[in-house]
């Protein structure tokens, strides 16, 4: 492979698989457990990290991201221990970004100081909605007031704070969302993740939907309108979209997530965590065992908990890169893509998409336009490689 696969950076993802309650829309690897033996988990995470780090060899570590589940249920000491271990196994970048996902309850806000002391410098809060009725419908355990209070605490402790909102919710009007988004933008936030509610199989909402019992979901035309409103309102407020669902003041983008979208390398630690790691001109995809108990047992006995591990072909890498990087406003680097694909994209298809206004291109880059991003999957289906069934 001609391109330098390691050029897009290196991040560490740590998955904490536990939640206090399972949200009805969430299809992430999360589990509700009455008691979690934090010291046992700490030992296992550190062991897993040590074994994987030894396997990978020296790398400069650009970012760490604690995701879940609900990582704000972790003891600050555990978080600190993982950060210390990671930055001793890998040489940390001078400006290393360390993010922790947090639920905005008062209990969790109480731990924020500890996380800051442990080295976390960015918080991503799962606010999800700014009114109590909708928070309840989304299965969240916090109130809007609690979320605002937690935000203010975080704001005082961390350099960078982001929060998530879910929109295109049941029975949500276009006006209600515009108002809610406006309120969010009055908060001193420098990054927002704004996700349209997606009904996933295997979730409570998914089951209800399959049985025709989930009412009030917006039709595609309404959610498309809401998407465009979101782009306009955020751009006007100085937080343009840099990715399909992510908005930031210039410079405040999530560097960890940019590694995914720019198709850099990342190591995943914890149940169900995925990794993409390149070495010697090839790239591997890895996934850990999803069940917390099985993961724990495997790591305690062998130091690793691999469920899936495979070398990716250059064509696989090309499609993955295309799929991820086209989510970004900056798009893909054509030289890098062509080197992976082994051939340029079909110019006829590109011209067609360009004429319809879905993509833009320069000599060096190809990107989805504001019109194209909401139909990105259709664009990707046109551009991905044909495969023999």
């Amino acid at each position, binding site marked *: 492979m001609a391109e330098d696969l390691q050029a897009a950076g290196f991040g560490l993802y740590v998955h904490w698989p536990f939640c206090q309650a399972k949200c009805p829309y969430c299809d992430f690897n999360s589990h509700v457990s009455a008691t979690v033996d934090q010291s046992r988990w700490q030992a296992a995470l550190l062991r897993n990290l040590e074994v994987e780090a030894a396997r990978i060899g020296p790398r400069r570590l650009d970012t760490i991201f604690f995701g879940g589940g609900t990582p704000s249920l972790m003891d600050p000491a555990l978080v600190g221990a993982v950060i210390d271990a990671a930055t001793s196994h890998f040489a940390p970048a001078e400006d290393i970004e360390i993010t922790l996902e947090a639920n905005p309850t008062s209990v969790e806000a109480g731990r924020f100081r500890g996380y800051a002391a442990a080295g976390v410098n960015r918080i991503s809060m799962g606010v999800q909605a700014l009114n109590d009725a909708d928070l309840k419908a989304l299965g969240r355990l916090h109130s809007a007031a609690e979320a605002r209070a937690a935000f203010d605490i975080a704001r005082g402790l961390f350099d960078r704070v982001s929060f998530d909102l879910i929109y295109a919710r049941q029975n949500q009007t276009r006006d209600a969302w515009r108002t809610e988004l406006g309120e969010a933008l009055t908060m001193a936030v420098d990054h927002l993740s704004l996700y349209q509610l997606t009904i996933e199989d295997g979730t409570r909402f998914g089951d209800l939907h399959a049985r025709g019992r989930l009412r009030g979901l917006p039709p595609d035309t309404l959610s498309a309108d809401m998407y465009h409103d979101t782009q306009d309102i955020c751009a006007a407020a100085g937080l343009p979209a840099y990715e399909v669902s992510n908005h930031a003041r210039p410079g405040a983008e999530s560097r960890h997530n940019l590694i*995914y979208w720019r198709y850099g390398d*990342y190591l995943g630690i914890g149940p169900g965590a995925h990794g993409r790691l390149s070495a010697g001109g090839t790239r591997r995809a890895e996934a850990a065992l999803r069940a917390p108990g099985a993961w724990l047992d495997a790591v305690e006995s062998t130091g690793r908990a691999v469920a899936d591990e495979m070398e990716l072909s250059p064509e*696989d890498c090309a499609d993955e890169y295309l799929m991820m990087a086209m989510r970004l406003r900056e798009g893909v680097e054509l030289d890098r893509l062509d080197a992976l694909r082994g051939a340029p994209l079909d110019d006829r298809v590109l011209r067609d998409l360009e004429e319809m206004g879905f993509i833009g291109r320069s000599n060096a880059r190809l990107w989805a336009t504001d019109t194209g991003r909401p139909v990105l999957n259709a664009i990707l289906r046109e551009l991905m490689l044909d495969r023999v069934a």
Partner: protein
Amino acid sequence: MTELSQIRNFSIVAHIDHGKSTLADRLIQSTGTVQDREMKEQLLDSMDIERERGITIKAQTVRIDYRAADGQDYVLNLIDTPGHVDFAYEVSRSMKAVEGSLLVVDASQGVEAQTLANVYQAIEADHEIVPVLNKIDLPAAEPERVKEQIEDVIGIDASDAVEISAKTGLGIGDVLEAIVTRLPAPKGNADAPLKAMLVDSWYDAYLGVVVLVRVMDGVLKKSDRIRMMQTGAVYPVDRVGVFKPGMLPVDRLGPGELGFLTASIKQVRDTRVGDTITHEKKGAETPLPGFQPAQPVVFCGLFPVDSAEFEDLRDAIEKLALNDASFSYEMETSAALGFGFRCGFLGLLHLEVIRDRLEREYGIDLITTAPSVIYHVYKTDGTMIEMHNPADMPEAVHVDRIEEPRIKATILVPDDYLGDVLKLCQDRRGIQLDLTYAGSRAMVVYDLPLNEVVFDFYDRLKSVTKGYASFDYQMIGYAQDQLVKMQILVNDEPVDALSVMVHRARAEARGRVMCAKLKELIPQHMFKIPIQAAIGGRIIARETISALRKDVTAKCYGGDVTRKKKLLEKQKAGKKKMRQFGRVEIPQSAFINALKMDE
């Protein structure tokens, strides 16, 4: 050879789940025709498609030796007949090959539509009918009510119906006795010239073409030289035999007997159902009455979804055609669909069976174009063309008039549903010829254009009558009408494969339905797609598929890459199952489903 008086030939008429196969199995088993250890469930079922659709396409037969209560030995020949209006002619020949029927009715369910349709065919063939109430052991069995129903609905005496449980074997002996005592022995003359009816035929990998025959007069022996009276072909007979149910060679078949012959016949195409087989020398002078040549009445184009599979399709069609004389084909090219075949069928079920077999047995994904009948297009220059593909329609200025085939349709229906049936026939441009009552059921006779019937008439009829109607038809000739070619334009491009001939007065309604259907069947694209129905240059109906506005994954992070990429790959593969028309991708199922009219 068996004495005529010792032979009983019969069929079993039953609704699908009422126990026909189980009863047949029990009759075969209890008479020791098959040893218990060789017994498999449902001996008479064969093709997958038959089993799935609950229809029989090929006639099958089994010979049962039975010593009756009177101490005499009898030969009982059971014939399993096809059961669908597309094969009405084949059914009528099978029915003519036997003298009686067992009418099997589930004692807990009562008479159902399929029973009706088949029992009328038995009545038509002058059968003696013995009612048999099955599943009499079920707690829900209501034999007296069902007997009354048989008398009311079908109009035959059910007072001495045989009560059985095919499952437990209860009453099987009574059925055998009823066959012997209540069904008539066949008639015939062993000394007369040979007359054997060709009931059905199929290809056997070891024996070549096997012909199922019923000897009416004379004697058929191995080494005889026989002549097919319709085709004139002469063959030396290799073997004659009977089915027990495996093939068992015998020396000869005499009058009243059912059996098979093989005669180095290479292709099933060379045999004609209903033909009369006689001896080459000193043969019969007149054939048996009722022969009709197989006549395809429904035509459609079959194209491979993947144009690279054309040669595979050609091989598959040629192989299927060898085994099915009623199926015709010729090569066709379409601007939009490339190379394919124009195929002729006995009816829509026949079309679907052939298409299913091509897809399943040969693994070819097909696009089926709109079914059509044969139109007589009289041109202004005085010539006439037989047109079964709207693509061949001459320019309107060159057309003087168009005639279309019409049928006489006979529908039997409980009078509760009569109004719906009359409306359906009226909607399909029918002219009522007759309406009579027999008990609580009506018999309506309509003169209908075949083009209104070929597509979904039978399905609609079943649907509006909850399955309680039976339907039969015969061709009665051609008549002129105001017929026009309606084109469908997708994104302003005409799609030939969707062109249909319609009556001018029905064109607009039909066009609206088709456009609305296509709007549902064609997925949203990245641009809006107008769908129009047009006659000549005039647009008569229009729908628009709006452009896709939202199709994006909201969250896609490091852990989502593998899964989301697989999903997109799967969707991309799905696109390959569609056919590209200009910039629009049309799913293969759209071609046939666009024509269905859910009135």
